[in-house]
């Protein structure tokens, strides 16, 4: 009887260990991309970090529900989007309209290339409905269909938004070049 109990608890322990390893692998593989996604979604470093922490905590708690490792990425994104939405439910009152704030200040990215900073500013300036599909595509390499599944949109809507996102970026870049040209010339 004791023998069996012991092997049962050994089993529990090794299950626990396996779960830990799985979680750590998940963290290592995805934390950077998930954080960047959160950052570009939220446009605030510390809020993004909080949301990522909450996301991984929830992921840990329901890790057993994740059967397919290939789905891990979109599973995490789903949790993160839910956490982010929850944030708005929770504190509707003390949020500022983040689209109005220029968070990409020079100190944060002092070491970044000038071009990077310019693009970052433009990306941050896109409205979230264009920005989100674009970052899903660029960071995670999602197809239009995958983005549609993630955001609950149909593929055509996603493709239109991606087109408009890049179109807006391009136009903004051209406008800047023009202005710069005028100033320099």
């Amino acid at each position, binding site marked *: 009887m004791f023998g069996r109990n012991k092997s049962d608890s050994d089993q529990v322990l090794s299950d626990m260990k396996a779960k830990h390893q799985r979680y750590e692998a998940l963290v290592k593989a995805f*934390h950077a991309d998930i*954080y960047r996604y959160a950052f570009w979604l939220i446009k605030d470093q510390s809020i993004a970090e909080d949301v990522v*922490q909450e996301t*991984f905590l929830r992921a840990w708690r329901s890790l057993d529900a994740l059967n397919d490792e290939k789905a891990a990425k979109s599973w995490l994104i789903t949790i993160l989007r839910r956490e982010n939405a929850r944030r708005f439910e929770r504190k509707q009152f003390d949020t500022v309209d983040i689209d109005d704030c220029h968070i990409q200040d020079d100190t944060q990215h002092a070491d970044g290339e000038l071009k990077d900073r310019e693009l970052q500013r433009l990306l941050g300036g896109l409205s979230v409905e264009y920005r989100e599909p674009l970052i899903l595509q660029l960071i995670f390499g999602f197809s239009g269909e995958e983005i549609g599944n993630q955001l609950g949109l149909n593929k055509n809507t996603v493709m239109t938004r991606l087109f408009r996102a*890049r179109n807006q970026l391009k136009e903004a870049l051209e406008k800047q070049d023009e202005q710069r040209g005028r100033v320099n010339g």
Partner: protein
Amino acid sequence: MDELEFRRRIYADPETTDSDVVEAAKADGNKRSFWNEQKQLDKQLKQALKVDVPEDLASKLIWQQSTDEFNRYKRRSRWYLAMAASVAFAVGIGLTMWYHQPLSIGGQALAHMQYAEMESAHSLLPADLNMVNAKLASFGGSFSEMLDGVEVVNYCHLSTVRSLHLIVNTPQGKMSVFVVPERGDISVPSEFADEQYHGESIKMKHANVMIVGDKDADLSDMKKAVSERIQFSA
């Protein structure tokens, strides 16, 4: 494929491998260079999106998971602790209730009679109304008029209840009047007796008065006198 449609498709997905887009690019150098341009921009965008990740984020995520687990484990063990605490608490309550079950002090009053017989006044001064009232004041009561024949006025304890004991000399023999404050944990029987004495009690607003006399004594006069003369303030 016209220019606009081509741009739409490339803008939507510069990494596309759709054959019609590829064919269109092969056939048209302008389209090809537009596509390359766009691929170049995408590369730059990807680079720009790579903001610095907080250095310790990964370890934080792993650390918070183990704290979460630890807290849950603690919560689980606390369940047993809570159970044990509840049992101990229930036992404690039970014991206290048992300890504090209303004690009947009729018997106590009778026991006091035994040595009331022998008791002589601690003070040689005659008991007067002021003295009685001064002592009775701690129970919130007073006599409007002195009872006849009061010999001794003393506090005494009936079990754990502090009460005022008056020994009164009456035509019916010596009687004792106990003024007992009202308390939730004591019960005063309306009548009680043993071989030698018997007693009756009067329930008043904030106190009980017990009158104990000899077995054959008639207590009704004393009862009447006490209930008429004693009063309790709120």
